[in-house]
């Protein structure tokens, strides 16, 4: 069976002509898998007036780009995108098919997997292949525990996975890289669509706060209660940081969900990450471990967060934070200005 299915595919998610970062990261990760399996890496690009993006997909590592350009595909909708992707997958039969674990990527992959009657692993953070069996090993944090589970899809093809943004690394783009562009036609009619896009509203502020922040101060349940959590905001204020929280904190209602960092929240990669009162459950760690400098403050000297911390302070956050805030304030007064990350 698996002989008929060849190649590693990456769904290229684009919004108004701009490719999502996670798609470029997946081209980097997919390149490694394709090289191991000695097959081509292909990008799958759908949209309206998107042909110009093919060269960018190739420059980031693809050998081939399958493109469907159609007016009905202007905005993402499950029904139209799914139809295009299923058409391509049935015709060209990839063995592995990866999607970014974004709202659209997860939505699309779930629908496509159902139509193709194949397996789909959600929110993967590690990818590898078992070369002998040509099996994709898609690993993700297992629920709750400090443990990872590798999910396999032995008998069905393509093997599909959604992959967390900011976990894989994109390659340096190579403008001279050559590739093949394969254009596919599809019959789609706006009148047949049961979903109409009335408008798309952008709200970049919330996203910029966490995903693009240079400094993040993140608090966990170790702070004790919501009132103590205000110290997190104070520290963030003096160092010009964004505030985040763990799943526990969000579940407890101390913070809105969009400020949750971890497997089911945002993945962040700031220059400096303060982890305060956070034990370091894998669920949280996968969302922040690629930060440049990690500062952990926790009472429990054995907390796993210290294993990944650049600097660790074993102590009571309620005692440490006010001192830290005070010191940062003094420095900024000394220097006659605000602290911020240039």
């Amino acid at each position, binding site marked *: 069976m698996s002989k008929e299915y060849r190649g590693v595919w990456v769904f290229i998610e684009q919004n108004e002509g701009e490719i999502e970062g996670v798609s470029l990261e997946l081209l980097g990760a997919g390149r490694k898998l394709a090289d191991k399996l000695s097959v081509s890496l292909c990008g799958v690009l759908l949209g309206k007036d998107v042909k110009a993006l093919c060269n960018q997909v190739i420059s980031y590592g693809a050998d081939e780009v399958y493109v469907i350009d159609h007016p009905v595909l202007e905005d993402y909708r*499950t029904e139209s995108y799914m139809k295009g992707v299923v058409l391509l997958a049935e015709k060209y039969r990839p063995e592995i098919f990866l999607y970014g674990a974004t709202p659209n990527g997860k939505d699309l992959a*779930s629908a496509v997997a159902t139509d193709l009657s194949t*397996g789909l692993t959600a929110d993967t953070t590690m990818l590898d292949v078992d070369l002998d069996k040509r099996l994709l090993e898609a690993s993700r944090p297992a629920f709750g525990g400090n443990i990872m589970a590798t999910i396999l899809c032995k008998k069905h093809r393509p093997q599909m996975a959604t992959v967390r943004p900011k976990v894989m690394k994109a390659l340096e783009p190579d403008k001279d890289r050559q590739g093949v562009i394969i254009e596919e036609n599809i019959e789609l009619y706006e009148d047949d669509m*049961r979903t109409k896009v009335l408008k798309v509203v952008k709200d970049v502020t919330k996203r910029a706060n966490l995903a693009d922040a240079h400094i993040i101060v993140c608090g966990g349940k170790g702070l004790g209660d919501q009132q103590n959590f205000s110290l997190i905001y104070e520290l963030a204020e003096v160092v010009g940081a964004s505030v985040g929280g763990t799943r526990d904190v969000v579940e407890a209602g101390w913070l809105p969900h969009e400020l949750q960092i971890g497997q089911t929240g945002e993945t962040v990669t700031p220059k400096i990450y303060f982890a305060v009162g956070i034990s370091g459950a894998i669920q949280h760690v996968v969302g922040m471990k690629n930060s440049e*400098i*990690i500062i952990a403050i926790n009472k429990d000297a054995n907390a796993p967060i210290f294993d990944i911390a650049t*600097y660790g*302070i074993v102590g009571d956050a309620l005692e440490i934070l006010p001192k830290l805030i005070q010191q940062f304030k003094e420095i900024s007064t000394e220097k006659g200005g605000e602290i911020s990350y240039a």
Partner: protein
Amino acid sequence: MHIVVCVKQVPDTKIIKINPKTNTLDRRSAPAILNPYDAHAVQEAVRMKRLIKEVYISVLSMGPPQANAIIKKSVEIGADEGYLISDRAFAGADTLATSYALSKALDKISSIRPIDMILCGKHAIDGDTGQVGPGIARRLDIPPVTNVIEVTELNEKEQTVVVKRKLSGGYQLLQIQMPCLLTVEKEINEIEYSPLPNMLKAARYEPVVWTVNDLGDVDLTQLGLKGSPTIVGKMFTPPKHDGGKRLEGSSDEQVRELIKCLLEEKKELFHVK
């Protein structure tokens, strides 16, 4: 109008303990609850019922007999009827096999009372996949909309619903033809306190329980473990990091040391405007 809400019983992750020896969950330690996102889905159906009176709310779950607890909970929030599909044949199902079993039950519910809308939580907090909702929609060939944060308009005459769908940086405003399936985020509503009559009704309520034989024409090879393309290959502890520098001394000394290190390593931090 008939709304069916798909609900799942999950262990309460806020309370669950981890077995330090095996690093896995001690499921016995956690009480089983109605998946929080599903509770918001039931609440949203109740909100719609308040808007346009003629709404009948059913809930559907797949799980062991104990899962009738979350159906009672849904009745407490305001559901009119509850169905539980429970059979060993369903055990060990991944998302593909789960959406198959639920779609068969939905077919049967639909033959009793045609369905206009299906609501699901965005994902269940024990698996976090979010794949079952869109899977059901595909199997029933109805349009799915995931990550709904607001239902802004419900037009019974035109059989359309307008919703806001959350995106990475903003939202889409979509108009969908019913029947359709929506998966909801928590911000869609606030869970209300259940009125006393609902609580009394829930206390006495016994859900309709179906086994695989009650579902009619079902392909057994698509159910449970057998019908699941994905399996867990192995479990492992992620590679340990060495950890960095532990700062020492009194809390004052540690704070001073930290700031010194940051100043050396990240001079850009102290860029003065």
